[in-house]
């Protein structure tokens, strides 16, 4: 059986804007990925527990609220704590470039800013998958 790329698309924070998350979820589906979409208002704890139950390869988090410097490190810490450190975290939303660089230093795979064509994260994920799937 052909293995599928499983990806959790999560939307933390209190704002009610999930258009971006829905657009990216649909693009991922059309790329052949199995997308677990959890809806709005997810805390890092909820995101990590859902990712573990769903055994995803990648967690895609979109943050528009400005809380990215809290949310991403918390997710990375929780993943390590729960023995799921090999899950790959990527992000999107409104995140200044200097923060993006810091987040990548901390272990986030990549940050895709507003207006990024959906093909970019898809290519990134396929490339990451082809380099890492054998280690699962």
């Amino acid at each position, binding site marked *: *059986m052909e293995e*599928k790329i499983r990806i959790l698309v999560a939307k933390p924070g209190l704002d009610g804007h999930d258009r971006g998350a829905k657009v990216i*979820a649909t693009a991922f589906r059309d790329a*052949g990925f199995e*997308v677990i*979409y959890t*809806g709005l208002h997810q805390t890092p704890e909820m995101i990590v527990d*859902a990712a573990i139950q769903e055994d995803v390869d990648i967690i895609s988090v979109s943050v528009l609220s400005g809380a990215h410097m809290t949310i991403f490190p918390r997710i990375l810490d929780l993943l390590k704590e729960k023995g799921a450190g090999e899950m790959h975290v990527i992000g999107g939303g409104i995140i200044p470039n200097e923060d993006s660089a810091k987040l990548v230093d901390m272990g986030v795979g990549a940050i895709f800013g507003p207006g990024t064509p959906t093909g970019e994260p898809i290519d990134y994920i396929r490339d990451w998958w082809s380099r890492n799937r054998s280690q699962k």
Partner: protein
Amino acid sequence: MAAGPAKAEARALAERLVNQDRRAVARAISHVENRSPIGGELLDIIYARTGDAHRIGITGPPGSGKSTLVHALIGHLRGRGERVGVLAVDPTSPFSGGAILGDRIRMPQATGDDGLFVRSMASRGSLGGVAAATYEASEVLEAAGYAWLLIETVGVGQSELEVMEIADTTVLLLVPESGDSVQAMKAGVMEAADVFVVNKYDREGGDRLVQDIENTLQFTDWERHGGWKPPVLTAIAARDEGVSAVLGAVEDHLAWLTQDETRSHRIRAEKIERRVRVLLNRALSEHVWRERHIEERLTEAIGKIAERTLSPYRWVETILQESVQRRED
């Protein structure tokens, strides 16, 4: 991977499963879903621990409120301290092979509770309303100590009835708008259900739908189905109305299943026989498709078959003979 290391890894995984390690449960489901050698070994190891969980199938047309009912049932069962496993199946796109699995949106309690494990599954080309590995995934959850299993199908029409092979009790949800569909459904789905629930009962046409279902059931020979006559209940799952009665009907059915030992043995034996036939057919088919260079040979044969210089029957027979004689180590 050779059989040795797969077996050792499966054994380690099984041990972690029994200790209710959530990460191990999740990995194990992926293994059985991807039909990996570890998954195959694991299913063999855990089989002796399965057979006692209550498996409840939740099925119905798209939009009938399956996820919402599952959410409400989780609340009742967790309130009693029961450990609950959920398998929620959504369709895989036949065009891209991808899927959006969104059932968690309607199950906000699905995280942060060790007594609850929710897994979304894509149908991956299966047409029976569940995924090819949903049965196996339910065995994994059971081995991990989830005594109640809720299996939510994709939105069904007339013939996606596979869930009844997995479930002890199948609950069919209908909504007032689907009134006309009762006519269309009366053959297959109507006979598969052990409990009927008219959900979103407050909508117009609720009473008429109950009447339609009752009328259809009237003409079914329930003795042929062992004597259980499915109750028709009403609910508004989104407001938790009628849900405890649904759970009560499910428990009545489970009690009925076990009260007559001869009958319960017969039902179980029949299900196991069908299950083994499915597994054998699948194993045979996979064996044949592992024939060397099968894809290239197929491409080559298609040309000849199109030109009528080879018949498809001869070609299939040749492949089958070769594959039967082939030994695999």
